[in-house]
């Protein structure tokens, strides 16, 4: 009797296939993971989700004092630009963007190890966890962006800053998507490799720290000498950060070439990540 089967389990080394349909079927689970990650994070804290606001706020203050007042690093992306955005807002948008990136990379780089208890007992599409992490962090990111807008509005009302909403604003959803894909991609590449080599887990913490200094978060892009620009711009996060600033203030740096490169980079990282993850997820329980 010829029979059709709903599931066919093949050996571990068989071809890579990513079952997007299955991920969609588990969307409720992803939603619940998001809810769990978000609520559990702020349970039993007095300030609750307010912490999502406090953290970047504090970092911004620290950056303003150390890099702005003490070190006196420039906060413009294009040297000699007439229109200046207030340094506080400059640091804030950078910090918010970076903290999303770094939090998502960090959380996703451990996904197999932190979830091994669940994954060792039940099957669900493993990719649901990194997706949920990226989405849960997006909630904090959203809250922070709202806070940023409020503060920017206060600045504008007080006459301390001019807000020029630019056409680049339209790029914002693309930027956010790019940020999600990039951080998830980097995260799952690391998590796939750490199932075998624990070395990488050690690297993540300070690696991200170094990466942050290679990204124009604590300083403006104008600080980078022109001759190193093409090298510096290989960092795919940089165009995202600068375009983010450009979108909100209508002043800043934008180069289609570099931005395109960053997009290509992001897509590549994301797909390499998916491939690796897909390869590892089926047998990682044997090695973790």
């Amino acid at each position, binding site marked *: *009797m010829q*029979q059709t089967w709903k599931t*066919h389990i093949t050996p571990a080394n068989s071809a890579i296939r990513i079952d997007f349909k299955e991920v969609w079927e588990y969307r409720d689970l992803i939603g619940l993971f998001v809810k769990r990650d978000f609520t559990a994070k702020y349970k039993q804290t007095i300030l609750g989700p307010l912490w999502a606001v406090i953290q970047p706020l504090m970092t911004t203050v620290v950056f303003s004092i150390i890099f702005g007042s003490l070190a006196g690093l420039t906060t413009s992306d294009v040297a000699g630009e007439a229109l200046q955005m207030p340094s506080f807002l400059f640091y804030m948008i950078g910090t918010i963007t970076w903290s999303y990136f770094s939090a998502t990379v960090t959380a996703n780089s451990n996904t197999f190890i932190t979830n091994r208890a669940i994954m060792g007992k*039940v099957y669900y599409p493993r990719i649901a966890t990194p997706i949920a992490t990226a989405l849960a962090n997006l909630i904090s990111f959203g809250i922070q962006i709202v806070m940023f807008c409020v503060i920017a509005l206060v600045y504008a009302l007080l006459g301390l800053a001019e807000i020029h909403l630019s056409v680049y604003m339209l790029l914002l959803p693309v930027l956010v998507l790019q940020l999600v894909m990039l951080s998830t991609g980097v995260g799952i590449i690391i998590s796939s490799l750490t199932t075998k080599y624990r070395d990488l887990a050690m690297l993540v913490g300070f690696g991200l720290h170094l990466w942050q200094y290679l990204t124009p978060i604590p300083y403006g892009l104008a600080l980078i000498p022109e001759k190193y620009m093409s090298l510096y711009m290989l960092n795919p996060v940089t165009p995202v950060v600068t375009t983010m600033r450009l979108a909100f203030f209508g002043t800043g740096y934008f180069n289609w070439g570099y931005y395109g490169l960053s997009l290509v980079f992001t897509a590549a990282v994301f797909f390499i990540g998916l491939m690796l993850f897909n390869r590892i997820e089926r047998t990682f329980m044997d090695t973790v």
Partner: protein
Amino acid sequence: MDELMIKVENVTKEYRLGAIGGTTLRDELQRWRAKRKHQEDPTLKIGQTRVDSDERFMALNGVSFEVKKGEAVGIIGHNGAGKSTLLKLITRITAPTGGDIYLNGRVASMLEVGTGFHGELTGRENIYLNGAILGMSKKEIDAKMEKIIEFSEVRQFIDTPVKRYSSGMYVKLAFSVAAHLDSEIMIMDEVLAVGDMAFQNKCIRKMREIADSGKTILYVSHNMNTIRQLCDRCIVLEKGKLIFEGDVEAAISVYMKQDGIRSTKFDYSGIARSPYESRKLQLMGLTIVNREDNVLQEGEKLEFILHCRCNANCKQIGFRFELFSGDGMIVGTMFSDQTINGNYGKLYDLHTKMSTCNLAPGIYKAVALTYEYDKLGNQIGVDRVDPAMNFEIVEKMNASLKWLSKYWGHVHFNDMEVVEIRER
């Protein structure tokens, strides 16, 4: 009814022994460099030629079977036979090394209850989360929410974070979610029965209810009685191979045979001993005498010679045999009517007759012990061997009825004496 729900085809699963994944990136890079320069691998131990190359272990070796819709199939086998590996493959926790598995429906494993419970979330939130992890959609959970809460007996606390639950409440809630899964294929384990006695019975009843409701079930257990209660058919695994597939009773006896039943000689040299016993009088082996095998008819005496070695002068060493039924339950214990005095270095053979008069038909295992008394009159173990011997008791040739251990137990008491029958 002929629709197949599970088809396992020639499945193998290989594990690498030793330091799995214990290599670091550095080792791997060194190895790679050495390979390129055609040098000897620097990460290897001297004398080794390839990393872990031959230290492989086949947890499953070419297993094939099919399960039809609505069947409840038991999987039995000794520890390490490959039962858990097989379930891990079917539940997709890890992938096979070779072969194919086809499933016709969702698989829900009730192997581990409370998977993914998060302490900070309330009982209700955890039901959603746990249900979703186990593959239910939000809609399905909504529909079952009331039943789950009702079954769990923790309604009062359902909106309290589960970290404040007692461990009993926790497992009750967890079992309730698992028990209300609506998957076509259920994988169950005896450890599922959780909580206090009353709740355990409720769990077993619920499992039987699931089994009767036409779902396809794979059931793993070491307890032959629950296997008998729940399953229609069994497969027996041994050392990664499927050695039997078919009728439950037949499967159980195949499983038992792996223990060395149908033998008249038992050697204890390979049996691990505990370090707490003095072994002044060490048990060496046992030989059943005056019969061909170790299958007795009900009521027959079992005659055997117990071989001992005296490692130190000793006095008044007694013997004790503890009898266990095939499913691991203790049935009773018997003592020897004489003790033995031993001189250092001597070998002794103890010829004994064991009465099996009240043992019901079935498979039994004996654990042998030697003991002495201390000054306070307590029995102190001198040596212990587990298992010391296996034997099977079958119905008398002319017996009119088949003994049902499942309902009647392992002791066949002497018939009641009817004194008088009177018409009133």
